[in-house]
Structure formats: structure tokens, C-alpha cells
């Protein structure tokens, strides 16, 4: 596939993520921050976000495994995940965090477990799509490098 076609495919793929609600306009802001001085910025931010998100989701899972759940501790993790999801433009994940926040406020452990399941699903979907996005970006960079 040639460079122009790859770039179009990347643009369309990102657009599809917007249309599905997986990403919102905040991700466009992040893409706009990538330039010649920060050529790998999008990949770095996605990697950073995914590492943090997985750590937090594991911590939430662990907290909910206790018989007596520390809901205030849970709150701070949910807050962190919601914040980073918002900041990277992970729209559906951000909305799923709101569900967990509400269940946590109500001290509803069962509700929290259901909300965590949704968060995990949304995160896995997002991660798969991010992996595909980065695969495309790397292919583009490789082609551009080979053409120089």
C-alpha cells in the first residue's frame, strides 16, 4: 500500500473511532500537539495512558475483591481513571467510569463490580483500536523513512 493510501486509512480509522464514540474531540487536540519537535507524541501518550489505565483497573479489581471495600480508596482510583480517560479523549471509557463513580458513591459493591466489567470491556476495545492505530502510524513512518 502506498503512503497516501496509508495516511487516508489512518485518518479514516481515527474517524471511525470518533463515530463509534470511542474517542472524542480531545483526541484531535492531542494529535494536533504532535509535530516535528514531538514526532512520537501520540504513541508516547497512548503508551503512558494504557500503562496507567491497566494499573488502575487492576487496583480497582483488587479493592473490590475485599469483603469490606474501602470506597474512599476506590474513589481516588476511579477519579484518576476518569481524569486520564477525559484527557486522552477516551469518551466511552470516561462514561463507564462515571457509572463506577456513582455505584461507589452509593456504596453498592455489586453495582461497582458490574461497572468495572463495563470499564474493562471498554478499555480492552480502546486498547485494541489504539494498537491498530499505532500499527498504521508506524507503517507510515517506515514508508516515509524509506522514501527519503
Amino acid at each position, binding site marked *: 500500500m502506498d503512503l497516501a493510501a496509508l495516511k*487516508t*486509512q489512518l*485518518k*479514516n*480509522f481515527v*474517524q*471511525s473511532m470518533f463515530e463509534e464514540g470511542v474517542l472524542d474531540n*480531545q483526541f484531535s*487536540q*492531542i494529535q*494536533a*500537539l504532535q509535530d516535528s519537535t*514531538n514526532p512520537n*507524541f501520540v504513541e508516547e*501518550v497512548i503508551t*503512558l*495512558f494504557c500503562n*496507567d489505565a491497566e494499573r488502575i483497573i487492576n487496583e480497582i479489581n483488587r479493592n473490590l475483591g475485599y469483603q469490606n471495600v474501602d470506597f474512599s480508596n476506590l*474513589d*481516588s482510583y476511579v*477519579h*484518576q481513571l*476518569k*481524569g*486520564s480517560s*477525559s*484527557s*486522552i*479523549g477516551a469518551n466511552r471509557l470516561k462514561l463507564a*467510569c462515571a457509572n463506577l463513580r456513582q455505584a461507589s458513591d452509593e456504596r453498592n459493591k455489586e453495582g461497582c463490580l458490574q461497572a468495572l466489567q463495563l470499564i474493562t470491556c471498554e478499555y480492552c476495545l480502546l486498547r*485494541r483500536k489504539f*494498537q*491498530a492505530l499505532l*500499527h*498504521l502510524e508506524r507503517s507510515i513512518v517506515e514508508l516515509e523513512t524509506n522514501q527519503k
Partner: protein
Amino acid sequence: MAPTLPSGDQASDQDNWDNGRLAHKRQLLTEIVLRNRLTALVVDGDTTCRVLEQLLLRSYGVQTQGVDNGRDAVALIASGVKFNLIIIDMILPVLNGLEATRQIRDMGVHCKMLGVTACSGESERQAFLAAGVDVFIEKPLDPEHLVPILRELDGQ
């Protein structure tokens, strides 16, 4: 699992025009901000948020420093370092954002403080404003909120 790619439609000319306009707006503002060398402190316990907020500020020519907890933010201000702008989250490790904000204001610091947080309730908004932030922003921090504030600081 190997990534799979969906087929796509043609990209729109509107996208190209919007991207060009955004770059042009940012360039104009960078010229303004650079003349005044604004500085900002970003206080956020989440690495992704802190990195993004710092880079957004830097893209407008603002020099930034970041800390990941409220205690370090208070200590930095107490050491005499001055900023034009402080961006602070509400929920922070060690010392929370509300208390950190109060302590910073109690030191007589009058710079612009933005409370940028994932919290979205009215009671949280009121609490953060009462603690001393000038503006409450629900994450994400975006140019629509930031640019008017930077213009205001640049004009002072």
C-alpha cells in the same frame, strides 16, 4: 490478537481546513505568549494528565513545571518560586488539592489558579472555588478554556 483495520470513506476537505485553522490560531497565540514568558505549575497525580496539560501549555509558549502531589506543590511555592498560573487537580496524593490550594493562598499567593479535575458535581465545584481557585474546569483542559486565560495573563 493481531489488529484488524476497517475499510474507510474519503477524508473531508473540512478536516484539512480545520487543522490548518487550528495551527494558525496556535501560532498567533504562541507569538503573544512568548513575548511575556508566562510560567505555569501543573499539579496532578496522574502522569497522563500532567504530561498532556504541560505539553498543551508549552505548545502556547508557556514554561511549565509539574509536580504529582499537593505537598510538593505547597513546598515549591513556599520556597519562593513564582508562577503566573497554577493548574491543580482536586484529588491528589499526600495532600489533596483543596487543602493545597488553601495553603498556597494563605501564603499570600495571588496568581491565577485553575482547578482542573475529573470531579463534576456542583458541591465539588463550590468547594474548590471556596478553597481559592479562580476557575473550575472539568477535565480535559482544552484550548477553549485555556486560551482566554492565557490572553488575560498576557495582557497584565
